[in-house]
C-alpha cells in the first residue's frame, strides 16, 4: 500500500494509456480469436436465429395490448426451437473447421504466398534504397537540402491518395506502360500489371516503397549520425576499401537501427491493406488482409476472424524469429 501512496501520480499517468490498449486492442483481439474457433456455418445460423428471436421479443413488447400477438408468439416459439436444435448440432462449440477451410482454400494459400512475397521483397528493396539514400544524405553536397525535402514528400501522402495515383500509373493503358512504350521497350501490347503473380507483387512492392521510403531513410540517417566521428576517422586511417569498411564497420554499428526499421516496416508490410485493395483488387492478387476484408463483406465473420488471427500469428512469428536470430549473433 505504501507503493500506491508514493507512486499514485505515476500510476494515474500510466493508467489511461494501458487501459485503452488493453480495452481496445487486447480485448478485441481475444474476441477475434475466440470468434475464429466457432464454425462459420454455425456462427451464421446462430446469428440469424438469435437476432430474429431478440427482434420478435422486441416486437411483442412494443405491440399495443389490444393487438393480436399470437402470430408473433408462434414465430418466437419456432425460432427458439430452431435455436435449441442448433445448439445440439455437431457444429456447435469450438472447432478448428474455419482454419481447416482456410488452409485448404487455394485462394487463401495464394494470399499467404503473396503476403510473404510482398513483405520480404519489399523489405529487401526498401532496405537497399533507403540505405543508399541515407548514405548519400549523410555527406554534404550542393542541393542536399532540396533533395532531402523531395525524399520526404511521400511521407505526407495519404495511403488512399497514393493508391489512387498508382492506379493511373499501373493501368494497362496507364502512364507507366506509356513511358515504356515511348522508350521503345514495349510494343503494341501493353503489360497487364494486375494479372497476379510476380508482376502484381512487383507493382504493389513498388507502390508501397514509394510511400514508405521517407521513414526508413530518416531512421537510417539517425543510425548513421549515431556513429561517432572518431570511428570514421579511425577507419579512414586504416586504408581499407570503402565497401569493406561499410560492411564491417558501419553496418554492425547501425544494427539496432536496422533492426527497428526492419521490424517496424515488416509489421506494417504484413498488414498492408488499402494499397492492394485498390491497386490489385481481391480477385487476382489476394493478400491475407484483403481476404479478411472480403470475408467480412460477405458476412462470414468467423472466417474473417480466423484469417485475421492467422495474419497476427505470422507477424508475431516473424518478429520473434528475427529477434532470436539477431540476438543469437550478438551473443555469439
Amino acid at each position: 500500500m505504501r507503493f500506491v501512496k508514493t507512486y499514485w501520480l505515476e500510476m494515474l499517468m500510466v493508467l489511461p494509456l494501458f487501459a485503452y490498449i488493453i480495452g481496445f486492442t487486447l480485448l478485441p483481439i481475444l474476441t477475434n480469436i475466440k470468434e475464429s474457433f466457432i464454425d462459420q456455418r454455425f456462427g451464421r445460423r446462430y446469428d440469424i436465429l438469435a437476432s430474429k428471436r431478440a427482434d420478435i421479443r422486441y416486437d411483442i413488447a412494443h405491440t399495443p395490448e389490444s393487438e393480436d400477438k399470437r402470430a408473433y408468439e408462434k414465430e418466437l416459439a419456432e425460432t427458439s426451437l430452431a435455436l435449441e436444435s442448433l445448439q445440439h448440432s455437431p457444429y456447435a462449440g469450438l472447432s478448428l473447421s474455419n482454419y481447416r477451410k482456410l488452409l485448404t482454400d487455394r485462394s487463401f494459400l495464394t494470399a499467404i504466398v503473396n503476403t510473404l512475397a510482398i513483405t520480404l521483397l519489399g523489405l529487401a528493396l526498401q532496405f537497399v534504397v533507403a540505405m543508399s539514400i541515407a548514405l548519400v544524405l549523410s555527406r554534404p553536397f550542393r542541393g542536399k537540402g532540396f533533395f532531402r525535402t523531395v525524399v520526404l514528400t511521400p511521407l505526407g501522402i495519404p495511403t488512399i491518395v497514393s493508391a489512387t495515383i498508382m492506379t493511373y500509373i499501373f493501368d494497362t493503358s496507364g502512364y507507366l506502360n506509356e513511358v515504356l512504350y515511348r522508350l521503345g521497350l514495349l510494343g503494341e501490347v501493353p503489360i497487364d500489371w494486375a494479372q497476379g503473380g510476380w508482376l502484381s507483387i512487383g507493382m504493389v512492392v513498388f507502390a508501397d516503397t514509394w510511400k514508405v521510403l521517407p521513414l526508413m531513410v530518416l531512421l537510417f540517417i539517425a543510425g548513421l549520425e549515431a556513429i561517432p566521428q572518431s570511428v570514421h576517422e579511425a577507419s579512414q586511417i586504416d586504408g581499407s576499401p570503402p565497401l569493406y569498411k561499410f560492411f564491417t564497420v558501419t553496418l554492425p554499428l547501425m544494427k539496432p537501427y536496422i533492426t527497428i526499421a526492419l521490424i517496424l516496416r515488416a509489421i506494417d508490410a504484413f498488414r498492408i491493406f488499402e494499397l492492394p485493395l485498390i491497386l490489385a483488387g481481391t480477385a487476382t492478387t489476394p493478400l491475407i488482409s484483403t481476404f479478411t476484408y472480403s470475408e467480412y463483406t460477405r458476412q462470414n465473420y468467423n472466417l474473417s476472424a480466423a484469417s485475421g488471427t492467422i495474419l497476427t500469428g505470422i507477424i508475431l512469428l516473424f518478429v520473434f524469429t528475427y529477434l532470436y536470430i539477431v540476438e543469437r549473433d550478438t551473443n555469439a
Partner: protein
Amino acid sequence: MHYTRRVTLGLLLGSLGLVRVSSGGMASLSSGETLSLSASLGENEWKVMREHVFPPFEAREHCRIRAVNIEAGDTLKKIEVMHRANRMSIDLVLLDNMNLAPYVEKRLVLDLTPYQALIEPAVDASLVQPLTFDGRLMFFPGRPNVQITYYNTDVFSGTGYHIPETWDELLAVAQRLKAAYKVGKVAVHGTLDGSTTAQVFEFITAAGGKITTFNDAGSIKAFTFLQQLYPYLSPETKKANWNTTNTFLSNDTLFLARNWSVGMQVIVQQNQKTNIQAYATWAGPAGRATMIGGDVIAITKRSPHQELALKFAGYFMSREVQTLLVSELGWPPIRSDALGSVPEWQQGFFQAIMEALRYGHYRPAIMGWSAVEKYVNLAFKDIVMDGRDVQTTLDTYARDLQEELDWLK
C-alpha cells in the same frame, strides 16, 4: 504559473466541448420532421434528387430530407447494425434489388401489405410481383435498371465490324478484334464479385439454364461458351466491373462491353465521349436475356418517421416524379403514363434500355444468394479463367452450393 494552469484548463474544457459537439447528431434546421433516406447513387443522380425531386416534397410536407449515400454492398450490414442497436437513423432506403431476402428474413423492413393502395394502377404489375415474400408485400418498386451493350461507333461503323446479335457473332467479333489489335477489345465483368454474377446470370438464362441449379444443360452451355470466349477478351476483364468498364470504354481500351445504364452519364456526360452508343443485348441459344436490377423502396421497421416515409414512397412512385426521372436521368419509369422526353443525346441509350428490359429476368430472391454468388465466381475463375473441365467443376460446386443452401434454410 497561473497562466499555464489556465491554459490547460481552457484546453480541457475546449476539448470536452468539441467532444460534445461531435457526439451529438445533426441539429434539425427546420421546425418540422426530418426524413432520412439512403441510396447508392452517383454524383449527378444525387444532384437531380437534391434539386428536383426533394424540394417539392419538402415544401408540401413541411419537412426536411436528409439524404445519405450508402453503397449497395454496405447497406445490409449498416441497416442491420442500426436495427440491432435500436438506433435506426435511416427511415427509407432506395435499395438495390440484388439481395432482398436477408432484409425480409432479418425482419429489417416494414410489412407494406396494408399500404398496397399506395401503388397506383398505372404502375407495371410485373415490377411488383417479385417484391412479395410469403404473400406479404415487403417493398415498393423504385426504379428498374438493366445492362446494355455499349460499343464504339468508330469501330463498329457497319463497314468493318457489325455489332454481334448472337453468341457466335460475339465470339467471331472478339476473335477478329484481337487479331487486328493484338489485344482483346471486348470484355465481360470479371472481377469475381456481384458484377460477374450478374453477367453470368444473363449468359446462363440466355441458354435456358437456372443459376441456382448450377449444373443444368443451360449452365453448362453458358460456361462452355465463356471458356471459349475468354482467350479473346481484353486482359482488363479482370478489372472490369460496373464502374471501371466506363473508363475502359472511354479511353478505347474496350470497344464492346455490357454495363449498367449509368454508363451513359459517365461516358458521355462526364468523359465527353461522342463515339459510344448502345443496343439491348445479344441472343443466346434460348434467346435474349437480361437481368433486371435497379432499386426498390424499403421502409425500415424501426423508423421513427414511418408515416412520412410512406408518404415519400407514394411521392416517389407518382407520375410527376417518375416523369422527372425519365427526362433528367434517363431512368426507365415504373409506370406506363410517365413517358417524359429524354434529351437527344440519351435517346439511343434509352431505347436500348427499354428494349433490354423487355427481355428482363429477376434474380431469385433467396436467403442464400451470397452463397450462389460465391460459387458462381469460383466456377468462373476455375472454368473460364483457368480452363478447367466444365462438367466436373460445375458438379462439384453444385453439390457444395446445395449443402450451404440447406444450412441457411
